[in-house]
């Protein structure tokens, strides 16, 4: 549906985007995930028409998008700041885009009422933006964008201004709405948990380039680059060279992993904390001493200092753990749980 090919954008000596290519499918909930400053907003602004790339093309259903003026594109952007018009009521804000399409008054009113109901703001129609809470403003911004029934809706950090509880609510709400209206959503976020819980597919950005595009589970279980392994979820990362059994570490010996790489390639091995077993004294591939135990309710984090490695290995266990700080443990994991990443 949306096809981005070889898009680059530089600001002076800052390269905001370098050679980005992506394909987004009809009806998809797509997330652009990356640390701040990696060019996510710049890409959205290019799609919306407020920025133009130095190189590259963008097509929507086969039509060139870059040649169209911002106000003619069948694309809407929900701004990070929401950008609600302060001198208009909620209803007027939402109606603004429809009035620009020269629709009849009755139709405008009907669609505004419908969308306000959909986001649960029917009673707020007469208020002005400054009389609303953060979560309500966010809903108005969303209503204002979806009421236009765009082919593509772009959302720039839609939940970042909300506090934690409202945020969780709005995540569900966003998903429900996307399902209901059937519009393709592209959401930008720097919060990997948010991207995982919302999106059908995620593109991980780093320094203006796409590192990996995958479904959340795939991205989590099979990171393809060192950056993705470190950025998406917690990971224990070991350095060494690929061998048939996994990874040959310089000081730690052979670590089990799912190797598909030629022997001897410099590689990283990534193991998720929840995949590591605390087996006790003698079995296991790594021995070490527990330096810290933190209980988080549903899970506990155990930090294990392994000789020959500077950072402690992080292990996550279900519920409360019996392990005590200072005790000796042996760590082990299944071969399939060690992911090898070429360096």
């Amino acid at each position, binding site marked *: 549906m949306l096809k981005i090919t070889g898009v680059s954008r530089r600001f002076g000596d800052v390269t905001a985007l370098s050679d980005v290519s992506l394909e987004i499918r009809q009806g998809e909930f797509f997330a652009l995930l990356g640390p701040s400053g990696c060019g996510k907003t710049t890409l959205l602004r290019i799609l*919306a028409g407020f920025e133009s790339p130095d190189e590259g093309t963008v097509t929507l259903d086969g039509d060139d998008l870059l040649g169209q003026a*911002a*106000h003619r594109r069948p694309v809407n*952007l929900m*701004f990070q700041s929401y950008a609600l018009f*302060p001198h208009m009521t909620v209803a007027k804000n939402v109606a*603004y885009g429809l009035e620009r399409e020269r629709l009849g008054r009755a139709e405008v009113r009907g669609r505004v009422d419908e969308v306000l109901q959909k986001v649960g703001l029917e009673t707020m129609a007469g208020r002005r933006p400054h009389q609303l809470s953060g979560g309500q403003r966010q809903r108005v911004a969303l209503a204002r964008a979806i009421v*236009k029934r765009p082919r593509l809706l772009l959302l720039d950090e839609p939940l970042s201004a909300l506090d934690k509880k409202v945020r969780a609510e709005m995540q569900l709400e966003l998903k429900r709405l996307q399902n209901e209206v059937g519009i393709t959503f592209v959401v930008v976020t720097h919060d990997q948990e948010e991207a995982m819980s919302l999106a059908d597919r995620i593109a991980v950005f780093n320094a203006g380039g796409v590192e990996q595009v995958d479904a959340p589970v795939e991205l989590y279980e099979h990171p393809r680059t060192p950056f993705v392994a470190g950025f998406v979820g917690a990971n224990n990362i070991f350095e060494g060279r690929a061998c048939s059994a996994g990874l040959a570490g310089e000081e730690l010996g052979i670590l089990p992993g799912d190797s598909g790489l030629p022997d001897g390639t410099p590689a990283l091995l990534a193991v998720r904390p929840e995949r590591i077993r605390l087996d006790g004294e003698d079995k296991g591939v790594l021995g070490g001493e527990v330096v810290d135990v933190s209980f988080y309710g549903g899970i506990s984090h155990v930090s294990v200092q392994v000789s020959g490695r500077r950072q402690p290995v992080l292990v996550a266990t279900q519920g409360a753990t019996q392990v005590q700080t200072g005790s000796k443990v042996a760590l082990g994991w299944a071969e399939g749980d060690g992911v090898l990443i070429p360096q």
Partner: protein
Amino acid sequence: MRKSRLLYVPFWATYVFLYTPIVVLVVMSFNAGDSPYVYEGFSLEWYGTLAKNAAIREGLVNTLIVAVGSTVLATVLGTLLAVGLARHTRSRALDALGMLPAVLPDLVLGIGLLVFYATIKSTLGLHSVLLAHTVFGMAFVTAVVRTRLTHADTSLEEASRDLGATPFTTFVRITLPQLAPGILAGALLAFTLSIDEFVIAFFTAAPTTPTLPIVIYSMVRFGVTPEINALATLLLLVSFTAVIVTQRMTRLTESLS
């Protein structure tokens, strides 16, 4: 820490210095006697004389025509110039040049305009004063609106474009309402400055169409009369009203945006 009362002395002294002349003027305008300097009791006599003075009435009408006309022109042109400067150039020099007439000495502007009118062989009259006042009024409007624009949120304009509004609709529906308090303040500034402007008007007016300040000047040359005091008091009232109205309106439009 207790503040020393002594610190308030220069403070109040400043206010006394600022307002004594004005208070004297107002009191003297209600003087029953003939002298503008010696108070002899209360009377409204001089306000009556003032109303009967044809020269002053004519000057007042001229001044109002010039002030209203130049304010309208200055507000429209100054706002457009400010938007152009803020949104479509990055040149500091153009920015400075746009606001220069506001700080230029009136003499320079007055002589310059006179020379200009002579060069293009224009006649002098109310129209020449009106255009002259537009020049400096516009600079003030530009300066005020320009400041407001630098603080305005450009994402609102982008949001409007995003929702399908043309650049023109965006300007009218989004940019202008955002700028309203600034435009209003600029317009009132241009109006009050025009009403009592003397130097430029003196250079660019025709002898047959004097503005109020010129009329007053020609009367004062033969000595101050209590009549002049009454006129000045009325002008003071107009200025005060303008300031208060501006404050009210700015607060009103601010609370809307």
